[in-house]
């Protein structure tokens, strides 16, 4: 009952039934008119080609309805509800979080779903024409065509759930202000295909990043060179992601102060990311048509995919830091003293997972020619691997403490923090590369200090471990020197977090002192 109320009210808010019918009928009329005209002016020999064109147009329209219009409607509904205060009204009601989230996923998207339903009919019509127009009425051919069509529709629906859930979650987190679709479009326009080339795992989320990829995805069901196993795998990964996003939306709806994901959910997300990134790189050799022109960039793809994993690992870090903070606050309020928490192990867990992902990616990339595998005696190789692992641990540990301190000071500075930490990790690498290139260009000699800056970043550590820069010296001293600097930074972050923790304890002891005072009149004689 509650879910149907949520759905019904959002349909009512989107417009009157007459308006919905007019829009849907209007779309159908436009398609019929243009299609009719195109068939009218064409000779019968060109009908098959027209069937194919119209099927593609309908498919693209379906993508627009499900992947763009529906998420936009969800965001708009959330924005309106936040502005009018109705979100709080929903929070007060006895509806469960799942009912509310489900209502938001379906209700505002109803118009888009109606358009999709109509386009499904139109698409089936063109598909039937296409199948029958092959010249021989063959049940198997028609069955196969419709099977592919239905499969494509199922894939589209999963994609719609992912984009809808993403839009909903971002809307809940940003009080309906952020427009994830705008961000996606901006990334698609600015980054476009290059993002998929750098992080092949993104190709498994086809459609999320680029309309161009989406069209290929739709084409895949019709015979494009993507095997069914890849598509099924891709759809399953998308489905898992949507489950994670919806679970997070349920968790956040009534408790906006919580971290975006719980620790188990964030770890599940990291696992999902690991599988997706690894699968993406594994699929590169099988889909050279998709990655045409990017041969020889496997090393870069490995580094970028590892970096993407680290970035997603931040959600788990954030969840752990916030949980630790809540624990410390509870302990301070109860004057329970300090203590350790299992949350502190998360940075180490993530570091180990990153190392694992890196090694698997490295193996899949099959790049021994680039000296990716540490050369030299096994002992040296083990030492270098341990150094990179240490770099990951220090990196995650530093970030964990900084997030803790920011949250303890109630600063809404996550974006700034991400940017700062991102710069801290990437900038040394870029500056080092730039300086090395410039020195080489100017004096035609290798720069003596090459690698020293790169060693300050965990990604630089991977580079130093995997390639020879200035021979053994560049690999050893910059790597270990950089590690030492990273350790100092980590200790600094520990000091910052400790200071924030002390502030919590001091602040809550004041509250305890207030409590111990007699409270004139308050609740006097009530209990």
């Amino acid at each position, binding site marked *: 009952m509650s879910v149907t109320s949520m759905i019904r009210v959002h349909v*009512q808010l989107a417009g009157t039934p007459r308006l919905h019918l007019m829009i849907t009928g209007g779309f159908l009329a436009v398609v019929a008119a243009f299609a009719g005209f195109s068939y009218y002016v064409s000779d019968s020999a060109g009908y098959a080609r027209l069937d194919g064109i119209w099927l593609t147009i309908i498919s693209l329209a379906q993508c627009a309805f499900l992947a763009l219009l529906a998420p936009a409607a969800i965001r708009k509904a959330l924005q309106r509800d936040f502005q009018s205060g109705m979100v*709080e009204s929903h929070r*007060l*009601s006895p509806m469960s979080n799942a009912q509310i989230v489900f209502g938001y996923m379906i209700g505002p998207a109803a118009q888009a779903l109606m358009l999709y339903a109509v386009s499904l009919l139109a698409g089936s019509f063109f598909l039937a024409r296409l199948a029958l127009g092959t010249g021989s009425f063959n049940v198997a051919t028609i069955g196969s065509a419709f099977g592919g069509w239905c499969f494509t529709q199922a894939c589209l629906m999963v994609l719609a759930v992912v984009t809808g859930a993403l839009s909903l979650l971002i809307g809940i987190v940003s009080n309906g202000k952020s427009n994830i679709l705008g961000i996606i479009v901006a990334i698609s326009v600015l980054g476009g295909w290059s993002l998929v080339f750098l992080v092949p795992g993104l190709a498994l989320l086809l459609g999320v990043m680029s309309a161009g990829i989406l069209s290929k995805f739709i084409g895949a069901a019709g015979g494009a060179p993507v095997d069914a196993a890849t598509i099924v795998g891709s759809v399953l990964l998308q489905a898992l992601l949507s489950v994670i996003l919806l679970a997070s939306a349920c968790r956040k709806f009534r408790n906006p102060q919580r971290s975006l994901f719980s620790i188990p959910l964030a770890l599940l997300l990291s696992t999902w990311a690991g599988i997706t990134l690894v699968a993406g790189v594994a699929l590169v050799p099988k889909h050279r048509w998709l990655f045409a022109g990017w041969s020889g960039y496997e090393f870069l793809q490995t580094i970028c995919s590892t970096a993407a994993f680290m970035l997603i690992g931040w959600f788990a870090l954030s969840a752990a830091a916030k949980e630790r903070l809540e624990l410390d606050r509870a302990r301070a309020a109860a004057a329970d003293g300090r203590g350790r928490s299992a949350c502190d192990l998360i940075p180490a867990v993530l570091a180990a997972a990153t190392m694992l992902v890196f090694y698997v990616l490295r193996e899949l990339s099959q790049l021994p020619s680039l000296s990716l595998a540490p050369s030299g005696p096994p002992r040296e190789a083990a030492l270098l691997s341990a150094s990179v692992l240490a770099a990951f641990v220090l990196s995650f540990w530093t970030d964990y403490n900084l997030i803790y301190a920011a949250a303890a000071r109630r600063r809404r500075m996550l974006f700034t923090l991400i940017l700062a930490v991102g710069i801290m990790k990437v900038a040394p690498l870029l500056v080092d590369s730039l300086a090395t290139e410039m020195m080489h260009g100017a004096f035609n000699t290798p720069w003596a200090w090459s690698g020293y800056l790169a060693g300050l970043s965990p990604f630089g550590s991977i580079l130093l471990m995997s390639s020879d820069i200035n021979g053994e010296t560049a690999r050893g001293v910059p790597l270990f020197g950089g590690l030492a600097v990273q350790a100092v930074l980590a200790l600094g972050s520990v000091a910052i977090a400790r200071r924030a923790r002390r502030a919590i304890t001091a602040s809550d002891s004041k509250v305890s002192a207030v*409590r111990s005072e007699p409270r*004139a*009149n308050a609740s006097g004689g009530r209990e």
Partner: protein
Amino acid sequence: MSEALLKLERVCVRFDRVRAVDDVSFSLHVGELLGLIGPNGAGKTTTLRAAAGLQPLDAGSIKVFGQDVFTHSTTVGHHLGFTPDTPALYDTLTVEQFLRFIAGSYGLKRAQASERIDHWLEMLWLADKKDEKVGALSRGMKQRLAVARTLLPDPHVILLDEPAAGLDPAGRVQFRKLLASLRDQGKAIIVSSHILADLTEYCTHIAIMGHGRLHSYGTVAEVAGAADSTRVRYRVLLAQRLADLGTRLQALPNSVSSLDFDGDTIEFEFERDRVEAAELLGVLVEAGLPVAEFRMLSPDLEQAYLRTGIGQVD
């Protein structure tokens, strides 16, 4: 004493370094109507939002029927109703569509919903607005619709933040009656308001807040008389206006304080004791004042509030 319907225990809410609610505790039982007063920024709205489970706590706990409002929000949702100071409504729906949605979200059956919608629209003078768009209603009507939304699921604990702010005088009278009726039905109600005269009429309890803290809490008589329970305010009406009233009032004894007069009306504070009051009446008559009415006023909440020194009532 029966189990508390609503219980706030050592509630603390902070915004950055500001303590919006600081160690506030009280409880509400069946048939109790608490008036929450205090200047702007005293923490009234934050207290109500916290009690509704909308504002996370930094410390303390809030329970409705013994269940935590934050961890059992869906269960508590059946028992608790909250009207914020700015009505949360869907402007593009009709009044009936909006209330039907609310009824549906609380799981009410269609017939039951229809019955209750008609009842509350009638009670809140909105029956003729049933088919009008919410956006077309006046501010006062929207306020009443928001109250109807709160009362529709028949909650046991009702929290109203400035409910009479947008109401016209007739609406305020009707609203007072409604609150008194709800109180008599056994609901536990908190009303935050700046209209203190109204509160004395229907509240059973009063809480005065300032700077996030609870300065006073008790029955209306307790709080109003908290400053000095032996003294009370009196009003004297004269049969005619006197030009030399000020001169004649010099005859009053020194124990009379907070004296205000305006031609034919005199107000002052004096001992509560009836014998002393009778003697004072004699003094007034002897001074040649044509006393038409001599009345001991009910506890003056406004005076009690001003004595706390928290701030002015808006």
